[in-house]
């Protein structure tokens, strides 16, 4: 037996105390009666004490029982049903796949999510709230959401929630959903819930390497059969401009002139499904939209031609900066580039966004001392002289470089926040000359979106500053204390795998030629731990020459936006002849331009994550007007759908743009073998059978969703309980009348005895 409204039952049972409380309150309210014949009253009481107590206890018990019976009746208890979910009222957890993959449509144009919603509604139709059935609702779009957990008997509201579901752009999070269900069920319980997994289990949803949590043994897991028809899909898996920060000369909101020059945007595409075996062409269109939204402007186009068996391709879209003029006129220097490809069966991964920033110049500060003087000789050049020369080369023959880097100098002894304000990048060329407080300020500078480039001090002997640097930036690196002398070290032609911070991507084609004459004779070597940065450029013996990383952050704090670059050799001819080689200028220029772009550029994240918001942001607002609060530097909830979000401060001023792109890990529309699915889901119910549901469309052969309901009747117990309560009420009246002794005839006073 179980009840439909346990809360009502709990409240009613609490009311059982009411007769007892009233009993004691009535005792306290009585005014005492002064009485002379107490000896006879006490005598009578002593004789009848046990009977009176029994009557009172019986009366009190009947009253408490009456309240309890009414409470049980109002809680609508039911008993006696059996079905797939076992005896008693049924509890069904509907787990609906609304991940990116669920948006894939079949030949009839019906999406997988639409079928899942139909199946969910069919299951809900088999439930009856009057019999105590309850349903929970979870969605798989990462991170898994639980709109209705714990289960509710308000099936109408759940049906409306199911009808309003739309696909997300995040991958499926089966583990998260099962964890929520397991936590809700708890290890012990009397119910036998059914967990109904409604998914096509395509390759984009299933992560067979992911270990699913185990459900309590009383739970039954049922899943729709995996899709058996693969769907062709082409996904835009990456979109990246050559430089996120473009030095376009006279550009930006303050400039009346259109920016000049051009750049390129790289788009990576991937094909899945049967189309992989065919010849096809995909058009990539690049559109520009301002960070504030509005109509997009087509600014470039490219065509990718697929050959049979080809699954990946890259398209470069030329971007003429002058075509950005309509967007820049809206008063912003940041432009959102949106790439689109031809629509296919899974259209949600056909769009991707990236942001570029157009700047007049970049400002770089050198922390070091120039020793060259007005006309220095090469021998007298200090690292600061070499860095300035590389970052601020002489004007071209027309005397007006299109974009440039403005270099300033900071005395190592006075590295304060005011001097770092307004600077995009800092070169620490004499690290042994700054103290720990300065390192702390540099860390704050990096967290605010700055680039910090560090080189060893150009001297011999032991150097202790790496400890301060590693501590300030929380880097898990190993840095040697003594410079290591190399025997004419050369730069490797093959660049190591660089990952996210590939600052030298544009030099790939010329790197071998430029690096050939460079000799490195001394390094203060460093080796990052796994996951704590990587080498951008290395020597032939594997010793990293350029390392890039983001400062580590405590788990609770939002990740740092800054970038730190460590060049293991000092910019000094005693250490390396790099400053005098042609590689010097493009190397430092790319480090600065790419590093600044990645450190302070647009905030891009994948759907399903909780993105970090720019400093001072109080809320995020999408172009559609949806608003999400910012708490502790992060969005208050995961962003599961691709969109461009403006980060606004408390006064409504835009502080940045957060771009959320589809998580194309979920774009794989290939089918998964049923046995593989069964084995994978079996981890959640070890030793038990996995029930298979047939939604009547793509996967015949399983149990019909309509069979979930079973035909066994349930017996509502409210009426019998009310009848019992009526009998108890009659008994209570009888006992109360008997115990009150109202029927006892009053005996007349004894007659006066005459003398």
């Amino acid at each position, binding site marked *: 037996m179980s009840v439909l409204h346990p809360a009502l039952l709990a409240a009613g049972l609490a009311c059982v105390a009411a007769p007892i409380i009233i009993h004691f309150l*009535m*005792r306290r309210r*009585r*005014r*005492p*009666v*002064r*009485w*002379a*014949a*107490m*000896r*006879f*009253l*006490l*005598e*009578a*009481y002593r*004789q*009848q004490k046990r009977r*009176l107590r029994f*009557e009172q206890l019986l009366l009190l018990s009947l009253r408490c029982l009456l309240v309890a019976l009414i409470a049980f009746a109002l809680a609508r208890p039911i008993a006696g049903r059996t079905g797939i979910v076992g005896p008693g009222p049924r509890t069904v957890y509907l787990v609906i796949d609304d991940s990116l993959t669920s948006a894939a449509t079949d030949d009839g144009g019906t999406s997988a999510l639409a079928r899942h919603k139909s199946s969910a509604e069919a299951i809900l139709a088999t439930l009856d709230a009057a019999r105590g059935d309850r349903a929970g609702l979870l969605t798989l779009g990462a991170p898994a959401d639980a709109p209705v957990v714990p289960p509710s008997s308000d099936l109408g509201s759940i049906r409306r929630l199911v009808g309003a579901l739309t696909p997300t752009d995040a991958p499926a999070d089966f583990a998260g959903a099962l964890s929520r269900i397991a936590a809700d069920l708890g290890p012990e319980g009397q119910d036998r819930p059914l967990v109904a997994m409604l998914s096509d289990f395509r390759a984009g949803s299933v992560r067979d390497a992911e270990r699913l949590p185990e459900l309590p043994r009383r739970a039954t897991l049922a899943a729709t059969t995996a899709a058996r028809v693969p769907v062709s899909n082409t996904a835009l898996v990456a979109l990246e401009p050559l430089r996120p920060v473009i030095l376009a000369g006279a550009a930006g909101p303050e400039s009346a002139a259109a920016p000049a020059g051009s750049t390129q945007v790289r788009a990576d595409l991937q094909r899945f499904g049967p189309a992989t075996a065919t010849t096809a062409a995909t058009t990539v269109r690049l559109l520009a939209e301002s960070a504030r939204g509005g109509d997009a402007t087509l600014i470039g186009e490219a065509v990718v031609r697929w050959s049979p068996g080809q699954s990946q391709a890259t398209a470069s879209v030329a971007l003429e900066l002058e075509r950005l003029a309509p967007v820049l006129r809206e008063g912003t220097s940041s432009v959102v580039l949106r790439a689109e490809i031809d629509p296919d069966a899974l259209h949600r991964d056909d769009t991707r966004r990236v942001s570029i920033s157009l700047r007049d110049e970049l400002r770089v500060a050198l922390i070091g001392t120039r020793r060259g003087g007005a006309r220095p000789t090469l021998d007298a050049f200090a690292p600061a002289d070499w860095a300035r020369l590389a970052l601020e080369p002489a004007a071209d023959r027309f005397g007006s470089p299109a974009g440039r880097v403005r270099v300033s100098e900071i005395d190592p002894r006075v590295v304060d926040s005011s001097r770092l304000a307004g600077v995009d990048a800092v070169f620490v060329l004499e690290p042994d000359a700054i103290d720990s407080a300065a390192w702390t300020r540099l860390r704050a500078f990096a967290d605010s979106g700055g680039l910090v480039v560090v080189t060893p001090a150009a001297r011999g002997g032991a150097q202790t500053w790496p400890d301060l640097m590693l501590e300030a930036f929380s880097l898990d690196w190993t840095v040697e204390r003594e410079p290591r002398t190399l025997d004419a070290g050369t730069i490797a032609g093959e660049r190591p795998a660089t990952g996210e911070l590939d600052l030298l991507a544009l030099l790939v084609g010329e790197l071998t030629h430029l690096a050939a004459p460079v000799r490195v004779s001394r390094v203060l070597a460093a080796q990052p731990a796994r996951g704590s940065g990587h080498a951008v450029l290395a020597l032939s013996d594997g010793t990293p020459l350029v390392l890039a990383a983001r400062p580590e952050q405590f788990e609770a704090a939002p990740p740092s936006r800054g970038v730190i670059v460590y060049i293991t050799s000092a910019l000094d001819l005693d250490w390396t002849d790099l400053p005098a080689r042609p590689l010097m200028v493009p190397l430092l220029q790319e480090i600065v331009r790419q590093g600044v772009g990645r450190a302070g550029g647009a905030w891009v994240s994948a759907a399903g994550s909780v993105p970090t918001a720019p400093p001072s942001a109080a809320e995020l607002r999408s172009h559609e007007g949806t608003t999400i609060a910012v708490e502790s530097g992060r969005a208050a909830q995961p962003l599961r759908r691709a969109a461009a979000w403006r980060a606004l401060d408390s006064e409504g001023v835009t502080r940045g743009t957060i771009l959320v792109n589809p998580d194309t890990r979920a774009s794989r529309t290939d089918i998964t073998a049923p046995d593989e699915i069964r084995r994978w889901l079996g981890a959640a119910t070890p030793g038990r059978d996995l029930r298979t549901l047939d939604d009547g469309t793509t996967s015949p052969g399983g149990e019909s969703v309509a069979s979930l309901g079973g035909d066994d009747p349930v017996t509502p117990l409210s009426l019998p309980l009310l009848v019992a309560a009526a009998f108890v009420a009659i008994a209570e009246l009888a006992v109360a009348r008997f*115990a*009150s*002794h*109202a029927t*006892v005839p*009053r*005996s007349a*006073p*004894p007659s*006066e*005895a*005459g*003398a």
Partner: protein
Amino acid sequence: MPDPTPDRPRTDRIRLPEQDASLYLHPQTLSRLRTFELRAKMIVEGVMSGQHRSPYQGFSVEFAQHRPYVAGDDVRHLDWKVFARSDKLHLKQYQQETNLDLVAMVDASGSMDYGSRSFAEASGVGRKTSLDGRDYWSKFDHATALAAAMCYVTLRQGDRAGVVVFADEVRAMVRRSSSTATWRQVVGALSTHPVDRPTDLARATDQTLAKITNRCLLVFISDFFEDPERIRAAFARIKHRGHDLIVFQVLDRAERTFEFSESAPFEGLEGEAALRVDPRAIRRGYLDAINGHVERVERITRSFGFDYQLVDTHDWLGPPLAAFVARRNAQIKRSKYG
């Protein structure tokens, strides 16, 4: 249901105007009692001869009976004529007629402070409250009125009257006298109020009998909420001393009907612990207990040959008192002459 009695203002002793007999004797009571004389049932000792029989059997008074001679008897009382006829020694005994000595003993224990009748309706003198502020007519009020009536009648016929007020011991006493000042002393002694003490009938009886040298008519006026065996012991002492006794058991009507309907804590007037009880549930047992006690008191009284009268505080005092005195005098005449 009678209202619970309000708390009585506590003063150690409240003196009423001694001459205000109307506080004790309702006019109706006085008018009914003026025509009666109080006669002793038994022979009582007195200084006046004539109206009442004396317990002393002497020489010059009415012959009573013969009894065998025992060693030590005064040989002057031998009846020689009987000795001559039967050759046996017998003494002649005589009866003396004397006056009536009445001692009214009023119970002032805590239980006598209960009453459910309004003072305005019971007092008959236009007062709504007593002089100490009570608005109810207590059993003690009724007892003092009854005692005053008895003394009033006794003094009017020229006999001696005295009063004893007692609870656990004798609290006040007026010696027997027939002088005109006695009435004022009686009224003064009755102008007290009950104390928060239980009744100790035996002790009060002992203390009273110690002050009485001649035989008297004792009138006990009490609710007799006392152990029956102690009552029996007290009456036995009175009987042994040769006194006559009239017992008036005063009860409030609420005590005899117990018509309470709502559960309430009952607090005793003699220091008993409070008892929370549903009166409807316990009523039958209570009535059985108190009626049994009343019957036992009456049975004990009559077992000694004394008179017993149950008095209800809700009844007028005059008619039942007059009827009682009339019945008593008739009995005395029948036993004397019949």
